[in-house]
């Protein structure tokens, strides 16, 4: 894969994570989550064969689909075309997102030099970016969907990093189980949230 495509994937990955952090529009967030998994797949090709990398893509898309179907069945999802003005909170989170991207870009080379010499700078930047976005999302929001997106983003970032360090089929299977269970828990939270709202 060409270097340009890899850089574009990393940029798109961070953009998708930033959208999930900044915007509060379920349909858009689900789309961004799906896009995030596609970009993870493209970046992970650097260290994995296409067949093994596809496992993460398929699991990611399944997770996205599970969340999407739960939101659709809740009846609360808005159309993607609905336009809303940016709130002050979104502007604030947008600024934070820019800061997180900057930190990831700066941390990539430092981490490569000090701890992970076998991983590429681009992969480290992408994984650190996802971990930071996930952490920020988990630390600031308690709404079930965003919390689960935060957890999935955090795990994706870590999986990306770990993929460059070690490969084990058992580990891949366990990561798959964790991701799918997390999506199920996310659906469980969303359903509970919707039920308690309607009660």
């Amino acid at each position, binding site marked *: 894969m060409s270097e340009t495509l890899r850089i574009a994937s990393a940029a798109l990955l961070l953009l998708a994570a930033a959208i999930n952090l900044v915007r509060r529009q379920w349909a858009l967030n689900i789309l961004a989550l799906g896009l995030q998994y596609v970009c993870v797949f493209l970046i992970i090709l650097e260290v994995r064969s296409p067949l093994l990398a596809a496992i993460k893509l398929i699991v990611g898309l399944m997770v996205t689909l599970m969340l999407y179907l739960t939101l659709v069945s809740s009846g609360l999802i808005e159309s993607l075309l609905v336009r809303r003005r940016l709130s002050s909170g979104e502007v604030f989170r947008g600024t934070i997102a820019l800061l997180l991207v900057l930190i990831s870009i700066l941390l990539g080379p430092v981490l490569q030099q000090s701890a992970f010499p076998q991983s590429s700078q681009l992969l480290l930047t992408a994984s650190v970016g996802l971990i930071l976005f996930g952490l920020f999302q988990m630390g600031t929001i308690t709404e079930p969907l965003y*919390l689960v997106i935060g*957890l999935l983003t955090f*795990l994706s970032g870590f999986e990306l990093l*770990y993929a460059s360090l070690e490969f084990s089929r058992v580990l891949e299977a366990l990561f798959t189980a964790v991701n799918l269970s997390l999506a199920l*828990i996310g659906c469980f*939270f969303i359903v509970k949230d919707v039920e308690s709202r309607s009660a």
Partner: protein
Amino acid sequence: MNLMTTPTIWIFLPVLFSLLLILVHRLHKLSVWIACTVSLLLAVVAMIFPQNLDLTLFGRNFLFDDTFLILNRALIITGTGLKTVAMLYLFSFLWNIAGMRFSVSRWFPTISLTITALWVSALAVEPFLYAALIVELIVLISVVLLTPRGEQAGSGVMRYLVLQTIALPFILLSGWMVTGIESAPSASTLILRGAVLILIGFSLWLAVFPLHTWLPMLAEKTHPWVFSFVFLMQQSSLSIFLLKVLDQFAWLRNLTGVFPAMQWVGVLTVLAGGVLASLQTKVNRVLAYLILIETGYSVLAIGLISQGGGEALALSLLPRALAYLQYAYTLSSIQQIAPEIDGSFPSLRGLFTRLPFHSISLIVSLLSLLGLPALGLFPARRMLWNSGAGLTSHYTPLLGLAVAGMALFILRLMDTLLTTDPNPTSPTLSGKGEESIWQILVLCFFTLLSLLVGVFPHVFLNPFLGILEPFIHLLPSS
């Protein structure tokens, strides 16, 4: 593939039964009985299984292997490790059988059996780093039980999920970082990084002070029966897992400062638990602080491993479980008899006149956890207090303060239970004999058991010292 292995019996078989229980989860009593029978059988078999794994049954010889291989990774349950397995399944049995009368989730039998099997697999998996993902799976499964019925998921359960998930990378990265470190003993930077990562991971898992904030939030919203089970299993298994990691890695246990750091973390956690418990006005939330205090004592015991801490930890496992069982049972029973009691002090005022045996049982379980002489936890506490005091004078006042905080809470609770409101707002607080004979018998049995364990520790607790047998490097004399 060899199926005559110990992991087949104590991991795959219960998982298979859990799957079966999914099919019958609507038939609550049946699923409870299946879970009870399976747990008890597994506990008893683990207890009496020959240590050399050579079983003679009906004149035939069955030689079991202790290793089950999956894709070049191993699940290992040795003969000496079976005592821990027996203990975990015993806990599962106790919580299933005694919890039959409470309206907890219909999924409790299924999930409790799955959680137990997963904890056994987390302790059995090699290399140890895979346990991080198994623990994450346990957390995700537990969330279903910890979320209250008919309510949205609270911030406690979400924080629990987040903080336990954050622990995962620390353990996995440490596992990767320290691979081959034994052959490169001069790699001091790597050793230090690996040790820091492991200790942070365990701190997050165990929810030591100050990472415990979600515990009281969760305890307030969750059924005490479920909460006590989930965190008893987590606390007991993680303590043994920490011993296993320390036993396995010489570079970790030989690193200067690891054990003193654990001692300080343990003491501060006990102190935080004691002081915060003294300020509480809700008995449900106190369950979280009891867990915190016990976590602190476990970490302190591991920190004092060369001063007899290992024995103190092993001796505390059963009485601690019995005290949690009694406290959670009494609390659940009170809330079942009188749903208007929300666990707050005003709602408990004058409860002694209404539910005297429940009130006494609540106090006895707390006194046991405090470490009162003649009750279950006293022998283990005495060992720890003596070892801590013998090592340095710094720990004694802090532990004393923690005990005083806990004692203060017990005194406040006694005052609340015994004092009747002069202007009752609720007409229900009148002595009506609401306790059935069966409930009284169960509560008296718990109290008697706690006394017996405290008075005859050598009879009840000495078998639990066998839990330390696998740790031959950490405890060469065990």
